[in-house]
């Protein structure tokens, strides 16, 4: 069925593809839009902006989220900023440069046409957000301010303090509220999608559980949009929110949507380390800290021992007894190497026994030199709020002792396979934002996730979905008493009954933690064939263990957070296996995916463009069956593919 992977990339020169596609897309007239229903699942930047824009166009939209309000979606936690090719700084930025940086940052594993379109619409996002009243940072003259981010040579990042994601989401949520008030969008908070309903090969609705009453509810539509984010929480301990999950996307996969590049997960180098086994969530410290902070571990094991026994403070270790390993290994980029490189280097030192806290999994990020060079006040202006936040959490002041940091799972580049129109391999099913795979290849650049969510939601999906719906306005409303709805609801009910019937003794989170340990050890920062095979085997064992030992207390027909978590964990167990399988297949190192077998003599990632310059799209073949791999080859016509080098 490889012919399902038709990317529908428009002909013509790169810069004209989107214009060309827009002019080809069929339209739906305003009076016909009123007859059409669209389901949007998820209310982060992608879901909220898509639902609001579709409602504004006159479609009937139903929008679903698992939290008590659309505003809680995890986009809210993004700190740094949003990229756009405005060239307001007159530093010779352009759509082409943003496109080029994103492809290169993704280690040449994303689609040229999609990424170019992303760069092309980026400017309109900023215009839209300002018009919505988002208080972006301003210069004294009243013009918008910008800052720089990793992996680029221009200043194109717009920001609202360290709360850019929050402000952008509140903007999209406000646009959504306006449509809810206008009656074009109906909002279903505290509802969780548990299955996709496919009729005659087309997406026609969902089964959702009302998380307050516990009842299963049926919703029909002419098209379904998945905007439910990534699957990072497969690893349990991540920077993702506690309720972030991959389930909606996974149910789509099991109904026939291909899942692309699942092994591409981003590990962010600057997170506050794990402090003990009672922890369930990691906190990110902004990438901007690496502009002035220096990363080091002790040169000698005896100092490490003393640190772990609290016999000395880090500040007491003399300069010549410190190993600034990033500056040593990557003299040209130093502490500002990309996220994947910085993460792997920290792991290498900790694996060698130089980790600086009790768990042995932490390195120092030191501002001593920055404070001496810039003075207290300038450091306070730049990083004061981050220092405060670090102090609140750790009770240790970065003014006196270096911060401790360690890498953690942060974002997933992989996701549901989509064509240029953002349509999946199931007609009528679309995927946007982090939930799809399309724009970031093997590694995402900072400040690009917000850009993609809003590009898809405001400017791409509302245009492309019309092409599909233009055939649908004469179709009657989806009948939710159709046998396909019966069947889907029955299957969901069976899943719920099954987990309640286990009556084991172990809480869901305890088993999730075990999955996280397997994933982190074998499918984390450094992967190898044997380890990945071990991971698959261990995940199988854990799955058996889950179905024998999990305890889901309470009942279905009540607010039951343990049931919610149990159903999500069932999916994480399967997602984890597919991630390992995809990592096993990808016999190269690329972006966030590092295979120990494939590295240069200096220990750097080694891509294999000859054999792996493709999107790995996996097709579900049934329970206990191996998924089938389909390949969409990537053709670079406008960019010269090269090796990333940070040493000189």
């Amino acid at each position, binding site marked *: 069925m490889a012919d399902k992977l038709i990317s529908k990339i428009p002909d013509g020169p790169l810069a004209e593809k989107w214009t060309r596609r827009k002019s080809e897309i069929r339209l739906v007239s305003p009076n016909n839009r009123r007859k059409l229903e669209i389901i949007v699942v998820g209310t982060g930047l992608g879901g909220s902006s898509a639902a609001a824009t579709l409602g504004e166009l006159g479609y009937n939209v139903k929008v679903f989220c698992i939290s008590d309000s659309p505003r809680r979606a995890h986009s809210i936690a993004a700190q740094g900023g949003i990229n756009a090719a405005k060239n*307001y700084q007159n530093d010779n930025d352009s759509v082409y440069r943003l496109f080029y940086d994103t492809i290169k940052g993704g280690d040449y594993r994303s689609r040229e046409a999609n990424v170019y379109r992303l760069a092309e619409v980026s400017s*309109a996002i900023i215009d839209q957000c300002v018009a919505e009243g988002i208080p972006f940072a301003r210069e004294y003259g009243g013009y918008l301010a910008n800052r720089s981010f990793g992996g680029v040579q221009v200043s194109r990042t717009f920001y609202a303090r360290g709360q850019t994601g929050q402000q952008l989401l509140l903007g999209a949520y406000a646009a959504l509220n306006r449509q809810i008030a206008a009656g074009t969008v109906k909002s279903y908070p505290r509802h969780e999608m548990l299955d996709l309903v496919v009729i005659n090969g087309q997406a026609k609705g969902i089964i959702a559980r009302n998380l307050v009453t516990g009842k299963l509810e049926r919703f029909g539509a002419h098209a379904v949009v998945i905007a439910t984010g990534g699957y990072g929480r497969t690893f349990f301990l991540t920077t993702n929110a506690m309720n972030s999950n991959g389930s909606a996307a996974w149910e789509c996969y099991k109904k026939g949507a291909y899942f692309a590049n699942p092994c591409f997960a981003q590990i962010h180098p600057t997170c506050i380390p794990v402090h003990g086994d009672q922890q369930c969530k990691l906190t990110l410290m902004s990438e901007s800290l690496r502009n002035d902070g220096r990363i080091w571990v002790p040169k000698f094991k005896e100092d490490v021992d003393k640190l772990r026994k609290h016999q000395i403070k880090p500040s007491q270790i003399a300069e010549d007894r410190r190993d600034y390993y990033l500056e040593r290994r990557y003299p040209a980029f130093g502490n500002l190497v990309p996220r994947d490189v910085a993460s792997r280097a920290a792991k290498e030192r900790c694996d060698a026994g130089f980790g600086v806290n009790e768990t042995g999994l932490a390195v120092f990020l030191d501002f001593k030199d920055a404070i001496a060079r810039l003075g207290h006040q300038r450091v306070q202006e730049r990083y004061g709020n981050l220092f405060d936040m670090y102090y609140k959490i750790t009770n240790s002041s970065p003014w006196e002792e270096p911060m401790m940091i360690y890498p953690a799972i942060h974002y997933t580049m992989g996701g549901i396979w989509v064509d240029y129109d953002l349509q999946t391999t199931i007609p009528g099913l679309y995927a946007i934002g982090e939930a799809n795979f399309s724009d970031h290849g093997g590694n995402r650049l900072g400040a690009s996730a917000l850009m993609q969510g809003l590009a898809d939601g405001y400017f791409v999906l509302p245009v492309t979905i019309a092409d599909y719906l233009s055939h649908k306005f004469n179709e009657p409303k989806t009948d939710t008493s159709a046998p396909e709805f019966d069947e889907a609801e029955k299957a969901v009910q069976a899943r719920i009954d099954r987990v309640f019937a286990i009556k084991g003794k172990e809480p869901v*989170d305890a088993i999730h933690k075990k999955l996280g340990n397997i994933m982190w050890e074998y499918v984390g920062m450094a992967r190898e064939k044997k380890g990945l095979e071990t991971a698959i085997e261990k995940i199988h064992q854990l799955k058996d263990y889950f179905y024998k030992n999990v305890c889901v207390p309470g009942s279905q027909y009540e607010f039951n957070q343990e049931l919610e978590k149990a159903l999500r964990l069932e999916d994480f167990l399967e997602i984890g296996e597919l991630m390992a399988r995809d990592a096993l297949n990808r016999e190269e190192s690329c972006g966030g995916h590092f295979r120990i077998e494939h590295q240069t003599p200096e220990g750097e990632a080694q891509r294999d463009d000859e054999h792996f310059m493709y999107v790995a799209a996996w097709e579900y073949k049934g329970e206990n069956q191996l998924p089938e791999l389909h390949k969409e080859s990537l053709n670079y016509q406008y960019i010269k593919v090269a090796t990333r080098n940070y040493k000189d």
Partner: protein
Amino acid sequence: MEFNLKIWRQKNAKDKGHFETYHVSGIEEDTSFLEMLDILNDDLIRKGADPVAVDKGSHTSGPVSFDHDCREGICGACSLYVDGRAHGPDDHVTTCQLFMRHFKDGATITVEPWRSAAFPVIKDLVVDRTAFDKILQAGGFISVRTGSAQDANAILIPHETAEESMDAAACIGCGACVATCKNGSAMLFVAARVSSLSLLPQGRPEAAKRAKAMVAKMDELGFGNCTNTRACEMECPKGISVEHIARLNREFLKAKFRD
């Protein structure tokens, strides 16, 4: 560290509810308040799953339900009233960023949901805050069509104005202000949105209409009146100032004069 936790248990909106007391031990100082509740729940689930423990008098109310998500103080989901203070004894934090080092070892800690007529309890410590969404739906937006905006730099906004607007926009919609207010007023929440938008030129055309509509909706939904006790400001995890309430009042009065 160890603690006695006196926690509000309520099966659903109709149930009367009651306190139950639990004991937790082996808690680290660096454990967050919500992680401590995770540990309690782990224990309650294991005990509940064990018929022997149940026979010996173990609680059977099951794990404690509470809203939480990002655990880094920005999503606004967590909403616990701890020892008589919204979000507990530390200043300018949400419950998820409250750490056990702020409590005395061996202390008894009382944990309740937000108490407000406008926020009915769903279960245990989980309340229904859709009233906040409804207030924002009444007018907490700028009416702009997607794609119709002019170039972003065509609207100049002085640095200080943008910063002031951002101060108000930092509201996370948690509801601590309502839970803290003796009148159960949502004025700080409404004011934060009205003020943030009305400070900006983009927000001016609808400023009067917005203030009126949001205040009317707030009254309709059963929130109380503001009597300027400033308790909300003290407990706001984002430190949003009551000066924004003054700005809301000005907008509101201006709108009323025009009527």
